[in-house]
């Protein structure tokens, strides 16, 4: 039997497949499609300190091999999550990562404090949501702010801290190094690329928020490059995300340097994606004659010259 376990820092996962934030809710709806105890982990929808209604609709536009979303962090707020959802998630039997976004530094810290006492496995600091005005991408495109925030969070919680970074920057490696310096346990690459779709007849953006985040296979080459680039720049683990649709994609991300991966948009078009992908990984490992999936991580041989 293939050994699918991976470690991201001190946290062990049954397999490298984690459901990405914002594409799996809190797991409730997905139970119908697969046995959630068998996937590596679930990352919650992005939570904020106070409840957020999110942006006006339309919030989605289809693009070539991808989609734009501008949900804008609609969520019930941390308190309601802790009261109504956490125990449900905690009972699912897979690793639970909580994705949090703050309007400012202090909001992030307050959420970290509140999560410290819970049973969750890691906190994912969303430094990359392109659909809200404050916090997030503003912090995530500034290395000083990243380092400062991660270091401060490090002080208020013992939970593993993952920094989820935005690709909308000149140097992703600089951002990842900042997160590492701040004491992050892992970086998560990538969130969505800022994009726009236009309705020619109306001469209006299709999204009511004007812009949105691009996800799906369209962005995979960019994500893969960022993982490979960052792998050479930092020592902490990388969780790879962006356009992963099948088991082969997962292994490409691992070869590029990812210790584990997150599956986002794939779950929206194929609700059984996570489960299917785990099976596909097993099949390919047999084909490749690899017995431990973690052996793929960082084995990319660059061409030189």
């Amino acid at each position, binding site marked *: 039997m293939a050994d699918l376990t991976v470690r991201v820092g001190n946290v062990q996962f049954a397999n490298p497949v984690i459901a990405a934030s*914002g*594409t*799996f*809710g809190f797991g*409730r*709806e*997905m*139970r*119908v*499609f697969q*046995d959630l105890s068998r996937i590596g982990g679930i990352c919650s*929808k992005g939570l904020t300190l106070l409840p957020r*209604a*999110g942006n006006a*609709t*339309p*919030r*989605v*536009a*289809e*693009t*070539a*091999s*991808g*989609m734009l*979303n501008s*949900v804008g962090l*609609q969520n019930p707020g941390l308190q309601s999550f802790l009261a109504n959802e956490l125990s449900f998630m905690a009972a699912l039997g897979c690793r639970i990562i909580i994705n949090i976004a703050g309007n400012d530094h202090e909001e992030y810290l307050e959420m970290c404090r509140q999560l410290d006492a819970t049973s969750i496995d890691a906190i994912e600091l969303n430094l990359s949501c392109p659909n809200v005005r404050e916090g997030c991408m503003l912090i995530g495109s500034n290395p000083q702010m990243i380092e400062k925030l991660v270091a401060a969070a490090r002080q208020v919680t013992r939970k593993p801290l993952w920094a989820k970074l935005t690709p909308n920057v000149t140097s992703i490696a600089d951002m990842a190094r900042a997160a590492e310096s701040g004491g992050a346990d892992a970086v998560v690459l990538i969130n969505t690329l800022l994009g726009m779709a236009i309705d020619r007849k109306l001469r209006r953006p299709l999204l009511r928020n004007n812009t949105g985040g691009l996800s*799906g296979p369209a962005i995979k080459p960019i994500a893969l490059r960022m993982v490979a680039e960052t792998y050479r720049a930092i020592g902490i683990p990388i969780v790879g995300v962006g356009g992963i649709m099948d088991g082969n994609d997962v292994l490409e991300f691992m070869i590029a340097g990812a210790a584990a991966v997150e599956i986002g*948009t794939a*779950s*929206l*078009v194929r*609700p059984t994606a996570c489960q299917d992908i785990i099976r596909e990984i097993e099949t390919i490992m047999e084909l490749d004659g690899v017995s431990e999936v973690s052996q793929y991580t960082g084995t990319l041989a660059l061409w030189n010259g």
Partner: protein
Amino acid sequence: MQTIEFSCPIIDRESINDQTVVLTLEAPVIAQTAYPGQFVNLASNQFLRRPIGIMNADSKKGSIQLGIRVSGEGTRFLAGQKKGDIVSLLGPLGRGFHLEGARRVITVGGGTGVFPLYFVQKVCQTRGLEGIAVCGYKSRKDSLLTDQYEALTCQTLFASETDDDMDFSGHAVAALADLLLKLKPVPETMILTCGPETMMASVAALAKKHGISCQVSLEERMACGIGVCLVCACKIKQGDEQESEYQRCCTEGPVFNAEVVEWQI
């Protein structure tokens, strides 16, 4: 674990007009449980799935019907599928119309809105409820499912905005207004509507004026259709004091009580 069907063969395909087809799919599990107002999310040659209302379900034959109007690449692909082709779909999804406690059910459909409402009248027939179907079209040429509606026990009222040769000449809302004036009121009457948002808002206003309860089927752009991505938000009014909140069209909807809908128009 609830079964959600995936690969369904097309067992029949009927062209309704040059832009519209009715596909009959083999989908026993969906046929068993689906009720009017629910939808399926269909894979096509495009990236995202496409939500299509369920037009009919035959639990004996294990088949469902979908009425599809070509409006872009995805529906063009779906409408072009042939007998024997296999489509991948998820369903039945969402919350449909509640008929509990109804005695008379008036449906008001506009355009492709007549498709899911056909299922409503079909169920009324089965349950022996009085049905009145108001169907509004641009013109006779654009009319859909008139024969099928006429084959049901419900009373039909076909309205055409531009032609004089249908039952009513004018908009479906005007037809309804006319109908409600002439009709002898019955308690436990319900108005169910599906179509363009402006039409549904007017129907809802009319229903309110007459003190008749009204349900509307909203349309929002969707991705997952199963409640996890939150892109399909609809503004829904809460209790009197509270602000309205976003609910998921695909999960809490697509059918809502007209009173709680905050119209976007």
